[in-house]
């Protein structure tokens, strides 16, 4: 059960990624599509891939149709998802990011992203690559047959697959966070543990609740 979750509980450094690209021919994919609310009651991240894009992958009786792009044979093992514009809008649920990671997706390419999804992704080691709409469309087109392998180089901010490397922009603190593989907890403790300890040393005694002896 726990064979593959450790790797995304703490993000790994994201430097160079090579992997198959799968096209997702939709704009405005909201997080409710990525993972419906009914699956938010779970107590583990592992296995969330089962609920990823649930309404698009299962029929009314709950049977996997196999028609969704990530379920098709030729896209098995895809690591990059090439979407359209406004990917990950809507509800703030972080489960959307966890479900993508659990399904093996390490990078999403789109022309724009929902703000909270974008930030949640960076916290969990999922890279969101923003490209111009034309470049996204062209990648999606080339990915259709299941034969496009992409190389995503975060350090040099390029993405390539066969043809010329395309440059992408990314905010500096997000790039650094992904490259270091440090999660927020690691960054906080690494940089601010001194401040935390200082506060704790100066905190009055009554701040720690003590149960009344009855």
């Amino acid at each position, binding site marked *: 059960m726990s064979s593959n979750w450790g790797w995304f509980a703490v993000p790994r450094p994201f430097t160079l990624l090579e992997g198959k690209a799968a096209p997702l021919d939709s704009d405005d994919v909201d997080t409710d599509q990525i993972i419906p609310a009914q699956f938010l*009651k779970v107590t583990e991240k592992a296995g969330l891939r089962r609920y990823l894009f649930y309404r698009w992958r299962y029929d009314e009786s709950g049977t996997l149709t196999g028609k969704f792009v990530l379920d098709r044979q030729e896209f098995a093992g895809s690591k990059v998802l090439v979407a359209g514009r406004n990917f990950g809008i809507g509800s703030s649920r972080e489960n959307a990011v966890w479900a993508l990671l659990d399904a093996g997706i390490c990078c999403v390419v789109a022309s724009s992203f929902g703000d909270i999804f974008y930030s949640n992704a960076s916290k969990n080691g999922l890279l969101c690559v923003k490209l111009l709409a034309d470049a996204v469309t062209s990648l999606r087109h080339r990915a259709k047959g299941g034969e496009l392998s992409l190389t995503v180089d975060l350090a040099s901010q390029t993405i390539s697959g066969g043809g010329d490397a395309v440059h992408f922009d990314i905010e500096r603190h997000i790039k650094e966070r992904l490259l270091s593989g440090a999660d927020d907890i690691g960054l906080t403790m690494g940089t601010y543990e001194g401040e935390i300890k200082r506060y704790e040393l100066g905190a009055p005694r009554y701040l720690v609740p003590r149960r009344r002896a009855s």
Partner: protein
Amino acid sequence: MGESVFTKIWNRHLLAERPDGQSLIYIDRHITHEVTSPLAFESLRAAGRRVRRADLTFATMDHNVPTGDRSAPVADPMSAKQMDTLSANARQFGILCFDYASELQGISHVIGPELGLTLPGITVACGDSHTSTHGALGALALGIGTSEGEHVFATQTLWIRRPKEMRIALDGALPNGASAKDAVMRVIRSIGTGGAIGHAVEFGGSTVEAMTVEERMTIANMIIEGGARTAIVEPDEKVFESLKGTEFGPAGEDWDDAMDYWRTLKSDDGAAYDASLSFDVGGLEPQVSWGTNPAMTVGVSESVPRPGEVGQGERDSTERALKYMGLDGGEAVTSIPIQRVFIGSCTNARLSDLVDAARVAKGRSVAKGVRAMVVPGSQMVKREAERLGLDRIFLEAGFEWRNSGCSLCIGMNEDKLDYGERCAATSNRNFENRMGPGGRTHLMSPLTAAASAVAGTIADPRQVGILDVEQLGMVRRA
């Protein structure tokens, strides 16, 4: 320039500021529950991390606990699993957990203040949006998500953008029949669901000064529905008094130390706010929501708006809301029949709320065809109410007397509305499907909800009749 009480507490807990606008805040108290914590604990475990300050961290079960007989096993396997998971996590990480069987179990925002876990001038974080409730005691209270909860577990700190500040002054004496709930619903009705977005709201004014601490909790809780990030009230003697002798509050020398700090927690004259509003609640009548967000509210003597009657831009949403609520528009609020009544939730399930409901319920009967339940906010509230004989008043009137939990407020346990059922509720959200698929929720005060239970329609408590507290004949039983 003077500082607000919010700024004073913020600065005291501020550890660092980052160029991207995020501030690192120390969290003095972390309360966690069974629904938003499991994945945070799982990540901690996977990374080999511990809870940095288990002694500042507390857990309770509230969102999906059954409110019926506690000796029976939990029927819903998903709920049972979340509860078991919380118990196991609390044990593993050394956190005190008020579990299903505990005498101290209750809704996080009810037990924090009543146990003395919430104190003036501290920072409180909890994985729930109505954490603002704790601000009624003069605490800086923040609702957080799962990853943020994990961050607090591991570091006892939180990264957050500093909210703007808004002061809302309420003035005037609340007339008979109008309560704190009506006051805050009136504010939300006026500012809209987005009116306070991005702001920490400081409540003040003569009405708030005159309020009990529990009444202040109701307004601090519900202003979240006006978009607020959090809420706060300057703590006063009433707050200090409410903390004396609590299970976990400071005692002895610690108490004196605490009081020295607590007395400094006032907003200075000339403190600057990004926005200021004031409301006169002197002529307020009971408020009732008719639609599918809390701002869709009118006075109990008014009619439901007709499609198109509300400001232009809102016409579509009015029509959608009317349709969902099964209303035509134009009907008198008091003509709307109800099938269910819910007196409960972190907004209105403290002892004074139950007393209010009893002031209308005593000596009367729940109307035929109506199922009414009283769900105390905590097991302590429940015991205290029973000592005062409130349970008998409710049971004799035909209300169900339940154990504590969130219950119908979120519909995660078995207390759900059936499709199309209409409920008079003292909770805080009337969103579509919130209390169960197809369920319809009208928000109101405990007085109004109890009056509606008796009438079988939404009703004006002043017309049904409100007893004085003395007339309840409350004698404290041992």
